């Protein structure tokens, strides 16, 4: 079914996934990517590196989940269509299929995910539903190519002549939803045998005569959707059978499994409470609303697919504080960690800690996210660590570089460095907030003393619930020593209950 896969690794699993030069996908059959939209009737016949295999799968899954997210926000199809433009550029590129390379990626990634999701009925059902949504959105966005698409895939549609249409006016107008005497002339009509669109028959939405449905151009989507769904269902049933035969336990199956964990668990754990921060939201939030200390940790997590103990604590609790549920947190960390280790290892050595944060293990007490005082005063990071407070713990040059990379100009950066030098870490963080939220100095009206406070305030500002110059009336606060809060940091708690430092921290 697929072409050969290049095995670029040695025996150890890790090596599959280390950074290696990618091979561009070879161009074989020119014509099939001439058209934008595909019904995915035939699998691709390409050679793909394992790295690409994984990444393409992820890319597509990302897109599907984003669309799913949009679907939850915008329940009607129309709204959904209008809001496609809010997709990030990576997803949007895959969505719009404007060039051949993207179409090829689309083709391959579809089949990769088919393999991943064919293994259980629930996963298959979810996957087909998401792909169908994607397909429908893309189909509706085809301006003039709809007819071409129908022709290419042998949809048995006959165009209804203007004469016939007029003669049937008294039947078509009352029978067809959305057709009125006013718009009958403007809509193209097609005849299709009723077996191609059971949905239209069942709901009696369309005129039926001698077994032929008379559908307007607006109904075409129902016809193609029916076929799309059918194709996928039969295809995946077949693939499930075949998957049993090929020997891919070492190589592909783990990759496929990783994909489904991300995809499926997100859907499963979508909280009723709209506050739940799900793993796919983290990237976006990190860029807009995380304080520098957390961004640092997040970035390290993405790069290394691992965090050491204190970083896990600081970051994990922070995420809990912004509203991430236990399930989401597990999914989030598992997703990253299992890029470097297998799921069993994660479950044995790291999942326990996360559950502990949420009070599900040991003393059954939920841990609280660290405030700035605790972060600054306890557990100073070593050279390879990423936790702590950057204004306190980072080398000034490194800090300066970091700030500039994040868009802080030289002037602002030097001001912040000065504040840091004066041990005014809270002010530095507050300035960072103000600059990144385009607020005037002192505009926040608060000094940041807790990473979650930073987050909450950021959300408020970005969601318009807080004015950008709320604090300008206040006096700029004088130099203060870092506060010690009334709640003494529970320094005793964490190390005793579970200490995984002995576990290998690469």
């Amino acid at each position, binding site marked *: 079914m697929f072409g050969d896969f290049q095995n670029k690794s040695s025996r150890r699993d890790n090596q599959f996934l280390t950074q290696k030069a990618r091979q561009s996908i070879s161009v074989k059959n020119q014509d099939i990517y001439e058209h934008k939209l595909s019904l995915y009737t035939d699998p691709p016949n390409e050679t793909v590196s394992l790295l690409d295999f994984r990444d393409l799968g992820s890319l597509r899954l990302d897109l599907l989940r984003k669309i799913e997210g949009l679907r939850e926000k915008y329940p009607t199809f129309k709204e959904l269509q209008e809001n496609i433009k809010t997709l990030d550029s990576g997803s949007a590129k895959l969505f719009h299929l404007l060039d051949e390379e993207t179409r090829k990626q689309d083709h391959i990634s579809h089949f990769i995910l088919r393999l991943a999701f064919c293994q259980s009925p629930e996963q298959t059902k979810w996957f087909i539903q998401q792909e169908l949504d994607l397909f429908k959105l893309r189909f509706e966005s085809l301006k003039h190519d709809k007819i071409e698409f129908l022709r290419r895939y042998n949809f048995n549609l006959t165009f209804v002549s203007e004469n016939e249409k007029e003669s049937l006016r008294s039947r078509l107008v009352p029978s067809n939803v959305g057709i009125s005497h006013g718009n009958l002339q403007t809509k193209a009509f097609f005849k299709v045998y*009723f*077996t191609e669109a059971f949905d239209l028959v*069942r*709901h009696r939405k369309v005129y039926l005569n*001698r077994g032929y449905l008379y559908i307007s151009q607006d109904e075409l989507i129902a016809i193609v959707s029916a076929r799309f769904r059918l194709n996928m269902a039969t295809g995946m049933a077949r693939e499930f059978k075949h998957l049993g035969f090929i020997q891919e336990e070492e190589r592909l199956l783990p990759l496929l499994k990783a994909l489904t964990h991300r995809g499926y668990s997100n859907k499963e754990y979508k909280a009723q409470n709209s506050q739940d921060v799900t793993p796919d939201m983290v990237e976006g939030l990190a860029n807009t609303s995380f304080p520098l200390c957390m961004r640092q940790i997040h970035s390290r997590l993405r790069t290394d697919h691992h965090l050491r103990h204190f970083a896990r604590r600081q970051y994990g609790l922070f995420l809990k504080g912004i509203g991430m549920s236990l399930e989401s947190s597990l999914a989030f960390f598992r997703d990253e960690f299992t890029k470097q280790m297998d799921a069993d290892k994660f479950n044995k050595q790291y999942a326990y800690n996360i559950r502990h944060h949420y009070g599900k293990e040991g003393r059954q007490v939920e841990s609280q996210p660290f405030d700035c005082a605790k972060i600054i005063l306890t557990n100073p990071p070593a050279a390879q660590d990423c936790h702590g407070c950057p204004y306190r713990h980072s080398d000034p040059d490194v800090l300066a570089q970091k700030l500039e990379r994040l868009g802080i100009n030289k002037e602002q950066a030097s001001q912040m460095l000065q504040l840091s030098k004066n041990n005014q870490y809270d002010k530095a963080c507050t300035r960072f907030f103000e600059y990144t939220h385009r607020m005037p100095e002192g505009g926040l009206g608060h000094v940041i003393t807790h990473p979650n406070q930073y987050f909450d305030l950021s959300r408020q500002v970005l969601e318009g619930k807080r004015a950008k110059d709320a604090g300008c009336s206040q006096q700029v606060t004088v130099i203060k020593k870092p506060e010690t809060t009334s709640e003494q940091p529970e320094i005793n708690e964490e190390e005793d209950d579970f200490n995984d430092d002995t576990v290998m921290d690469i």
Partner: protein
Amino acid sequence: MFEWLSYGLKPQDYIFRREFAFIFEDDAYLRYQSFKNEHEFRTQLSKSQPFKIDIGAVFNHEPRDHKKFTDFRAQERELVFDIDLTDYDIIRNCCEGANMCSKCWRWIPIAVKVLDFLLREHFGFKHLLWVFSGRRGIHCWVSDEVARKLNNEGRMAVAEYLSLISGENKIGVGRKNEPLHAMIEDAYDTIVSLDDFEKLVIEQGWFENESKWEPILKICDDLQTRDEINAQFSAINDDDAKGSLSLKRWRILKRRFDEKFRAKLEKSGEKLLPPPVPECKNFLKAFVLLYAYPRLDVNVSTGINHLLKSPFCIHPSTGNVAVPVNPKTIERFKISDVPRVDKLVTELKKVVKSSEDTDKENRKILYYKHTSLNHYIELFEAFVKNLRED
């Protein structure tokens, strides 16, 4: 029968894999019977002498071997419909439950005409076998190839397209001024043009008196119109026979609401009341359809697997033979004329006595042609012939 169910295909391709079920006196079911040819069928039949036979689907393996295969499943089966008068109990005034009389029988020809029309005109099906169920209902076997190959989803789609009555007794017809789908218009037009319907209206006494017509008028959404009609109805109390009263009131409704009727009257120069207000424009259609549209048992039609009684079976309670009927002449169908097993036995005895043939085999075939069953056999044979020619 075998010829019908073979559809001209090679036996091993088709009839081999058709399920038959034998049912015995104590409701014992013997499923997954299958036969290689007519002879085998007949032998088995005379050996076990079941009470009745049900016909099931064509499977992907011979049903009698069904335990040997893990992927055993149904592939094809005629699209079937079952209409039973017990589903009309809620609007039947003359009988209920197992009982039936010539008055409520009227619903059946109405149902047959409507469904026959819709199945042919809307769906384009050509080969419909209508079979009297033996007591108080009717079955339809749609044998077109397309119909046979429908999956459950398709069957459900067709059944739902043809369903108008939901829940206990609700009609899915907009009572307000919505445009109505062609199917609803056609169904209404078909029913209202039938003699049987008018007779039904009178015999069921729906407009006999105020307590009877009040629930019907409730369907009309415009209170003023409702009151007007109420007044008109009450104003009619000539001392004619009751039937006339109901008929007159029915005519009042037609004159007010039925477009075709109004058009006819206008042509002949009659003066009419103005047409109904938009709020209750569809009132009459809603009423007619609610009270006379066929009430299908969707479950029978949706399952490709569903076993349905074979034509020509004898009904255990009535002794009637489940004979095919002609939808075009069904209004003339009389239950009392249906061949009954006891009558047939008598007829057969007579035929046997009067024949001198020694070839027993031939005799059997000829015999039934000389009984009252003949007409129905001819109907059936015509059906099969049409099917084979297609």
